[in-house]
């Protein structure tokens, strides 16, 4: 019997018993689809939150500190961080500017604030195209390092800009688009509360999908507080550590230093030091726990699916032992029997697997949209892994009993009920 015949025979056998074939495939479809959906969704969630944390800046330490005598803390903190350069990569005030109007041509941040208010009043969804007002910050030359920005065009704020009170600013990608469209902002002059400020650079886009974008920002040298928010002293700072371990060390040293500055009982001022890593860690712990739980569910569903496949295969083969006996009696060799069952199992599992992958992909994308509002595609590894496992199970349990039955004397197989 040639292989083409064996294929035809397997095909006829599959069509010949549609009920049995559908049941077998159903086990595989459900197995693959559920495992794919669960594992892919977890994967997507973890990647999403990792992306968020990375965009926010990992190993970032937030410092709040203020002296009651109104004297500025930043210069002291800056100098101290220079000493910690083994642990610290950068330090900047993290101060939001309020009541500042930025104007370029016909665009102004005040008008954009109006947009935002109108959007809040209406349905809220029409706002996708609406230009929202930029968030404006005063920062040091290390603002970019601390907040994970990179320069796309032009240059970053420099130490000289700070020292010389240069009237310059750097734009986030979204803010650049809102004010300049597709034109190059670098070298252009914007009016900020009536003062001319030159745009020296644009940051690279971090997160193109998000509406409340981290990219809709304008950063000014912090010494510009002189004209943009007169009388303000800084109380919020960001410190960027070189690594997770460095963050721990820097956190405790800065706390120590500020204790010295403010007094043991914070008589001269208050402070508060917090490492973002702390809540990233606690998030990671939760995520790990969830992975374990959901991974367990996936394993169980795979097990259940696998047992289902195994069962139906075993049941049909017992049922088919008699058929094997008949085929052997009229002259089938062992190898023909095994080949036929192998091809049958492979065909069923293959078709079931492909349908399962289709359903799994659909379910994964739905789960991503509905549960966590992100776009997930199942990874190739997971897809192929689930497919391979189910096919392996189906073929194994499809062929093993057949091989066993074909080893019986034909008369014994014929006796099977």
């Amino acid at each position, binding site marked *: 019997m040639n292989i083409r015949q064996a294929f035809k*025979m397997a095909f006829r056998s599959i069509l010949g018993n549609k009920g049995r074939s559908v049941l077998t495939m159903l086990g595989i479809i459900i197995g693959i689809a559920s495992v794919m959906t669960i594992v892919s969704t977890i994967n997507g969630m973890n990647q999403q939150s990792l992306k968020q944390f990375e965009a926010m800046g990992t190993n970032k330490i937030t410092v709040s500190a203020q002296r009651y005598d109104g004297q500025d803390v930043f210069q002291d903190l800056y100098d101290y961080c220079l000493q910690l350069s083994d642990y610290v990569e950068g330090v900047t005030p993290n101060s939001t500017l309020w009541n500042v109007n930025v104007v370029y041509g016909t665009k102004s941040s005040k008008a954009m604030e109006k947009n935002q208010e109108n959007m809040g009043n209406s349905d809220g969804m029409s706002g996708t195209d609406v230009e929202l007002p930029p968030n404006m910050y005063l920062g040091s030359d290390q603002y970019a390092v601390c907040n994970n920005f990179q320069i796309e065009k032009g240059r970053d704020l420099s130490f000289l800009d700070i020292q010389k009170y240069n009237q310059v600013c750097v734009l986030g990608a979204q803010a650049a688009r809102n004010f300049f469209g597709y034109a190059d902002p670098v070298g252009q002059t914007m009016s900020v509360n009536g003062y001319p400020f030159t745009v020296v650079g644009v940051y690279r886009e971090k997160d193109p999908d998000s509406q409340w974008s981290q990219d809709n920002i304008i950063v000014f040298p912090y010494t510009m507080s002189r004209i943009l928010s007169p009388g303000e002293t800084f109380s919020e700072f960001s410190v960027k550590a070189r690594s997770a371990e460095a963050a721990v060390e820097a956190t405790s040293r800065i706390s120590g230093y500020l204790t010295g500055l403010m007094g043991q009982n914070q008589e001269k001022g208050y402070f508060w030091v917090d490492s973002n890593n702390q809540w990233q860690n606690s998030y990671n712990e939760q995520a790990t726990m969830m992975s374990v739980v959901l991974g367990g569910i996936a394993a169980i569903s795979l097990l259940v699916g696998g047992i289902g496949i195994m069962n139906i295969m075993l049941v049909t083969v017992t049922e088919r032992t008699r*058929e094997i006996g008949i085929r052997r009696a009229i002259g*089938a060799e062992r190898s023909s029997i095994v080949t036929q069952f192998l091809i049958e199992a492979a065909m069923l599992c293959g078709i079931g697997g492909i349908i399962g992958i289709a359903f799994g992909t659909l379910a994964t994308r739905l789960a991503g949209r509905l549960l966590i509002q992100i776009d997930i595609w199942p990874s190739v590894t997971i897809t192929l892994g689930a497919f391979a496992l189910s096919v392996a199970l189906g073929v194994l349990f499809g062929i093993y009993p057949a091989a066993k039955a074909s080893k019986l004397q034909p*008369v014994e197989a*014929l006796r099977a009920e």
Partner: protein
Amino acid sequence: MLIQINDVYKIYGEGLESEVRALDGVTLSIDRGEFVAIVGQSGSGKSTMMNVLGCLDIPTRGDYFLDGTNVRELTDKELSHIRNRQIGFIFQQYNLIQNLNVLENVELPLIYQGINADDRHDMAMEALERVGLAGRVKHRPAEMSGGQQQRVAIARAIATHPPIIMADEPTGALDSHTGHEVLQFLQQLNREGTTVILITHDNGIAATAPRCVRLQDGKIVEDREQEVDWL
């Protein structure tokens, strides 16, 4: 001699309290072209005998020569070939494959012979015409009466034109009229030169065979030739 068994035993559970000697030292020769009825009471070892003669089972002890070849020395593959080309089986329970239609069932032994689709179809149709079922080739076995199913089984047995037909109670599940037709068909095959071995517990049927071998408790107790009217 076409078939020759010497002092053959088939023993189940040998050495145990419950030991059963289904065949207990049987010696028998059958010549080409003979029509032999093997008769005996239930449990006397008739089916066991056919299974051994048909290479469906291996005897516990004793030699079996088929056309001069010692069957014990053959591989499983060679035994499959013998069953496929030399012997046509007709079983009491028909033993058709339920998921295949009538034509596919009859084609099955031809598929295992490696015969191409066109020839296979012609040979199967020819066999079905002989049993008068050429008009129902697309039906499933379950859609047919017992007598029709047995005729399908006969068509399957003769499709390969085997030199030997072995029939185990082929009329057992049929009414007497249909049974008689099956019997006449076997006689016709024998007249055309096929060696027929017919297993039955029915003395009336045994009386229509030119040679009758009687089994009792796994032993041959009688082996006689008789005059019949159909030859």
